């Protein structure tokens, strides 16, 4: 990996926004903020592929304005991986055959949890097996099919109420599936050169991880947790606080995996009780205190693994008994 100096202070981040006005995302949209940081990090020599999802529908506009100042093309809900490979393959082929000037072009896919963890999983897996450079797939995870009205996906956390997993008179919990750890699965791909997780806080973390991902010597993947006021039933002003709280309660784990080495990017010590994060969100409001304690127990158990991984710098699959 050729080292490019990472950004140490927010004032050194590019003041140019390549994801700018002209969209109609919700107030406090975490995914939109993620887009902005992503393109600040990637810069203008970038092609962006946008699978169907919130960042497709909400970034489209009835007046045909576009928020993208870089080449951008829609791809189908399950096609993020294939779109990235097709785009990267075209650049490599055209440059190799002298049909286009040789230079570095970034290929970035920004796909949601439904398009990445569910429908596009097979194509993503394929994409991570090839050796295209400056190719990064970013999963923006708002933990549901938010654009279609908050339906559970495979990354919706246990206990969340969604329109496909509503709470009712006999079903008290909401979503009964445990959140799929997509980044761990991607890390198991031998071709992948950089895997990380991040959230919107602190912003430099995601920006620098994007830079590292693009500088890696092959395909890279970042799983980005993005709070969603619409789907989490939170006040738009708390989006960044939620990102921070997710880290501090240990419900979101920020890490990097590169060249076989695992590192935590942030270690919450002492870790705050999960209720601080969960009680901010109406999607969990039906959970009784004993269910919250159950989540706390699972989180504590999972953190035994994360700490061990950090100390040994090795990938271990965490296992926690389901509730």
């Amino acid at each position: 990996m050729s080292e490019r100096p990472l950004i140490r202070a927010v004032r050194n981040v590019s003041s140019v926004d390549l994801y700018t006005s002209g969209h109609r995302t919700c107030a406090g949209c975490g995914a939109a903020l993620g887009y902005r940081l992503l393109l600040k990090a990637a810069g203008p020599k970038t092609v962006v592929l946008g699978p169907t999802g919130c960042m497709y529908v909400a970034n489209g506009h009835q007046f045909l304005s576009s928020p993208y100042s870089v080449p951008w093309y829609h791809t189908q809900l399950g096609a993020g991986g294939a779109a990235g490979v097709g785009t990267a393959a075209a650049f490599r082929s055209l440059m190799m055959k002298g049909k286009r000037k040789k230079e570095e072009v970034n290929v970035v896919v920004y796909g949601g949890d439904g398009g990445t963890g569910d429908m596009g999983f097979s194509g993503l897996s394929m994409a991570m097996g090839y050796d295209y450079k400056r190719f990064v797939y970013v999963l923006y995870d708002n933990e549901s099919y938010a654009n279609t009205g908050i339906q559970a996906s495979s990354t919706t956390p246990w206990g969340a109420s969604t329109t496909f997993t509503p709470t009712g008179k006999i079903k008290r919990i909401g979503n009964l599936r445990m959140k799929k750890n997509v980044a761990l699965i991607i890390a198991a791909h031998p071709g992948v050169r950089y895997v990380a997780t991040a959230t919107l806080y602190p912003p430099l973390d995601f920006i620098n991880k994007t830079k590292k991902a693009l500088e890696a010597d092959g395909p890279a993947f970042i799983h980005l947790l993005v709070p969603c006021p619409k789907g989490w039933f939170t006040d738009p002003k708390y989006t960044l606080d939620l990102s921070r709280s997710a880290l501090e309660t240990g419900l979101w784990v920020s890490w990097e995996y590169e060249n076989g080495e695992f590192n935590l990017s942030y270690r919450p010590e002492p870790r705050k009780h999960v209720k601080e994060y969960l009680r901010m969100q109406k999607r969990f409001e039906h959970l009784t205190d004993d269910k919250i304690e159950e989540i706390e127990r699972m989180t504590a158990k999972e953190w035994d693994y994360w700490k061990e991984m950090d100390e040994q710098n090795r990938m271990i699959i965490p296992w926690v008994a389901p509730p």
Partner: protein
Amino acid sequence: MPKTASKSVAKTLPKRFMWTGTRAIAEAVKLADVDVIAAYPIRPYTGVMNSLAKMLADGEFAAEIIGADSEHSQFEIAKHASAVGARTFVGSSGVGLAFAAEPIVVTAMGQLPVVAMAGCRALDDPGNFGMEWNDVLTFRDSGWLMSWAKDPQEALDMILVAYRVSEDRRVLLPSFVAVDGAAITHISAPVEQPSREGVAKFLPPYKPQYPLDPASGPITKAQHIAPSLIGPELRKVVDNAMAQAREVIREAWRDFAVFVGREYPPFIENMYIEDAEIALVTMGAYAKDAVHVATKLRQEGVKVGVVRLRYFRPFPQGELAEVLGKVKAAGVVDFSYSFGSADSSSVLFNEVRSALYESGSHPLLMDFMFVGGREPSVEHFEQAVRLLEKGAGKGAVEKHVWWPTLRGESP
């Protein structure tokens, strides 16, 4: 002839090879200097990708070849590579095409000149290696150009022409080159290899007007829209492109004859049609069987001709109306089905009938559905001609949809 003279004659003659349809198509892809190839295995089309992978492994030409995780990814890869400015090749068969339905549809709507080989195969269930057209015809309404080859030679030629027509800025629509499974994909036939120089003159490099490339500045493509704003206009763009393709196809085959040296009528090929009273209408490999039967029956004095469609999209409506307006009865030799359609008949039959509706005089029409993949024999074609003869004599038939290869179906 002295040795040297025979050598120089051999030099001027085009090289001929015994090639299967898939091998011939691989040659066309190489000659077109395709940049990105997306592969996924399914019979009977797969051979083309095997051949291309070997050519690339041997350094015969340079391209990126991706083995995808599914046909869905395969067609998405081709679509996105095309958007950047690469010439692309892809293909599939049977349920593989069904799995790729979503990217196939958006490739046309994105006006990307992807060229795909379709090795026609019966759709599941159950799995069936037999030949049917329903896999490709699923996409008849989607904005893809569709041509049907009769043999490996024409398959090679149609691929080259497909790039030329698809990439023409008056068209910018993707192309399916359909070849009948087994009958063309797996059967070797003599094929003349076009010269590199000829192809280079015939097929200019692909230069998209708005490539998805930072070097050309930012563009936003296929953004979500409010339907009331440009919904109908976007559909009309594709419709216009399909309409313009008719002239571009004519031009392309004219130039093909000049630069590559083989001549074809652009849309339909007629045999024995001048004085024909009845006609068989078909596409693809089995047109040769139809011609064989017509040749034989002509010797008995039966005035039968054969009409072969080379394109299904755009549909050669005018050409068909003109030629079929002169016969008394025509039978569509069809390898498709459209359950519950008018007369519960087949796709090509319904298209032919619809194309003739407004023309002044039209023949009595019969449908011969060879479905389910059971191989037809020349006897079936002969039977069809006899039934047409009878109908033409009486001016009517009681039953005009036949399943000649179905057990228990006999005239």
